């Protein structure tokens, strides 16, 4: 029989067996033993963030850039509660992740001990699975279960809470290869009858449309989607999370739909007669008024989670399946359809209201910046924060094969972008990473500059600085009589804090300010040349720039505000 080992040793053994090469960690009293074990461990890179929320976003960026399950390690109490926003973000965007939290020793649980919180209870509704390890002999099984659950089916975060005494208790050295979970059976097949029914329905369409969401990307079905759409000759629109699953240079790709989708795409959703949707949960940002969503269409819905089907939109043909498995089959069935007239109509809509921004009176046009990024960084992974800049990026950034568009879609977490960009660069150092962020969201996690500098991470930070919380300001401008309450981040005399260049200087980070359109490309090229660390580019943009089209929340997709 093999010799017993401590919990802390088993923890590291588990990471090794799972092939974990990087973890995102912040130390604290209830994980000092595990941290000490990491000191003795080779082959696992430990990224020390500067705030636990940022750690989780870094892990999300890592997972998105690599497809691997990301690992976070934090202490109990505040270390654990700080992760909550990140965990919720990962949950709503289906990011595979295992979060390890330290916990007070078993005998103190329930005593309101120092830095004790019921983190499993607090995160129950935003994790796929969460558990406190109450018995050293369960530790290996529960960690294995965590990795299995996080990465299979519809992926998501799992939280494993390990009391301090469990970490130092000796027990079995075994880490299982596989755990049978009797209540967990992710869909690994597709009901062929349903799929054929869905296909036959598509074939009857005169105005067919494929709607592809983030599920297509998660399952790695980009090639199959392109093959299917191309063989069928059916146009494709995407959700924000689905952006990039269809190459943007494909003539069948008509852009994003939804609240800030393209005019032609929203018109196509409204006018299509069969909507073939794959890997989307029909979020309200995509559908607008549910009663008037795709009113002329029969709807097919392929999704891995049966609970996502017929929840928001009642569908005609439900297919519970992984997008890739379904699309592989569909490619086999594919037959060319005559969609020439329909494509002409969509093209006409596009030419009636092409996606473009008016040139602003002051500052640099966001569209100009996005197009310059496309040109200077044609292969980069693009990460965004949340707000106007995010929607401009979703409209004007071109995401082609081999690129990722990494954004906080479901939760819409300001502060996501910068740490996620760091995590993406850590996960895939060969690929340049461009962060598109706003001055508001950037300030929510800007402490991570220390992480980027110490780890020498060459993220190009493009701040779309309009000195305002632009997305809410836009709503105030359009719907609240221009009463700009608490959206202006500048002082009354107009002075703005911080001066991002002076701030960057404090970190020995290269900083560039761009106020003139002619300086956009040179600034990006200068940033690209800096491979030793991050560069901050402070793009001054006008607070009056609007994200258009816009569908007001709760109104039909066809009611777009266009100017």
């Amino acid at each position, binding site marked *: 029989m093999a010799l017993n080992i401590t919990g802390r040793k088993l923890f590291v053994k588990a990471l090794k067996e799972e092939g974990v090469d990087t973890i995102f960690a912040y130390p604290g009293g209830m994980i000092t033993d595990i941290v000490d074990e990491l000191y003795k461990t080779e082959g696992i890179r430990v990224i020390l963030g500067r705030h636990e929320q940022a750690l989780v976003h870094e892990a999300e960026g890592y997972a998105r850039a690599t497809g691997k399950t990301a690992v976070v390690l934090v202490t109990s109490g505040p270390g654990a509660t700080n992760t909550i926003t990140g965990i919720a973000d990962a949950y709503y965007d289906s990011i595979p992740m295992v979060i390890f939290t330290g916990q007070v020793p078993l005998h103190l649980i329930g005593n309101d001990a120092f830095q004790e919180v019921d983190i*499993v209870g607090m995160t129950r509704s935003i994790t796929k699975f969460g558990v406190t390890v109450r018995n050293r002999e369960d530790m290996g099984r529960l960690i294995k279960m965590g990795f299995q659950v996080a990465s299979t089916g519809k992926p998501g975060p799992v939280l494993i809470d390990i009391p301090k005494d469990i970490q130092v208790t000796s027990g079995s050295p075994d880490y299982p290869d596989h755990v049978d979970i009797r209540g967990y059976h992710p869909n690994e097949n597709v009901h062929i009858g349903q799929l054929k029914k869905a296909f036959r329905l598509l074939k009857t369409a005169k105005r067919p449309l494929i709607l592809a969401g983030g599920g297509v990307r998660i399952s790695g079905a980009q090639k199959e989607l392109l093959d299917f759409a191309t063989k069928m000759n059916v146009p494709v629109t995407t959700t924000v999370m689905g952006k990039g699953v269809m190459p943007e240079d494909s003539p069948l790709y008509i852009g994003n739909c939804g609240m800030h989708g393209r005019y032609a795409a929203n018109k196509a959703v409204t006018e299509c007669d069969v909507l073939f949707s794959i890997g989307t949960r029909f979020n309200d940002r995509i559908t607008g008024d549910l009663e008037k969503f795709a009113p002329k269409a029969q709807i097919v819905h392929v999704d891995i989670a049966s609970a996502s089907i017929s929840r928001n939109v009642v569908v005609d043909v439900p297919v519970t399946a992984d997008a890739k498995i379904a699309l592989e089959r569909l490619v086999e069935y594919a037959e060319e359809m005559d969609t020439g007239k329909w494509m002409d109509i969509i093209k006409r809509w596009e030419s009636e209201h092409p996606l473009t921004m008016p040139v602003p009176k002051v500052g640099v046009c966001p569209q100009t910046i996005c197009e310059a990024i496309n040109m200077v960084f044609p292969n980069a992974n693009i990460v965004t924060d949340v707000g106007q800049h995010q929607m401009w990026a979703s409209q004007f950034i071109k995401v082609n094969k081999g690129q990722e568009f990494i954004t906080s879609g479901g939760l819409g977490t300001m502060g996501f972008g910068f740490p996620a960009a760091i995590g993406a660069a850590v996960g895939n150092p060969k690929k340049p990473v461009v962060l598109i962020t706003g001055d508001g969201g950037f300030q929510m996690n800007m402490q991570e500059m220390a992480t980027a500098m110490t780890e020498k991470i060459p993220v190009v930070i493009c701040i779309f600085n309009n000195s305002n919380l632009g997305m809410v300001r836009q709503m105030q401008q359009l719907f609240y009589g221009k009463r700009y309450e608490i959206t202006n981040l500048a002082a009354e005399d107009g002075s703005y804090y911080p001066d991002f260049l002076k701030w960057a200087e404090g970190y020995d980070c290269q900083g560039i300010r761009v106020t003139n359109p002619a300086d956009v490309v040179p600034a990006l090229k200068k940033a690209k040349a800096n491979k030793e660390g991050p560069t901050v580019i402070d793009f001054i943009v006008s607070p009056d720039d609007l994200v258009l089209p816009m569908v007001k929340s709760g109104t039909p997709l066809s009611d777009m505000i266009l100017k």
Partner: protein
Amino acid sequence: MEKMKNRWIALYVENQVGVLAKVSGLFSAKSYNLQTLTVGTTEHEDVSRMTISVKADDVTFEQIKKQLNAMVEVIKVIDLTTIPIHMKEILYATVSDLDVTGKTEAFQIAEVFDRGGSVKICDIGGDMVLFECTLTENKNNELISLLKSRFKKVQIVRGGAVAVEAISRSNR
């Protein structure tokens, strides 16, 4: 909007810390209308069985079943609404401030509702009687409304429904 109906689900779940909180948390988080929830262990000590009654329309009820099924800790979901079942709920009703006529009436009510020992007066005091009932949820509702209409002071303690699938005809 489709009709809101009472429906019943049986759940086999892992008998572990936090599972009850997870299941009940789903109902509050998603604003599902939970009526009763009972839980107890099964013949396997690591498995518990819950009986849940909810008030929901068809679409919401489908969604509830799917959400429960998606939980890692939920082993099996059985829709009891569409299959033959046996169901009982335990109910205690204390009726007080009774005069002699009232007491007599209470005994009469117990006798009328009783089906082979399912309703009895199990305790009695100066001006009080205690009903002990094992009826269906609906029958208990009827009894409660009758007691409330006949007597001024009625105190109710309900246990929530417990249900089990009927033995199918082919197995008889």
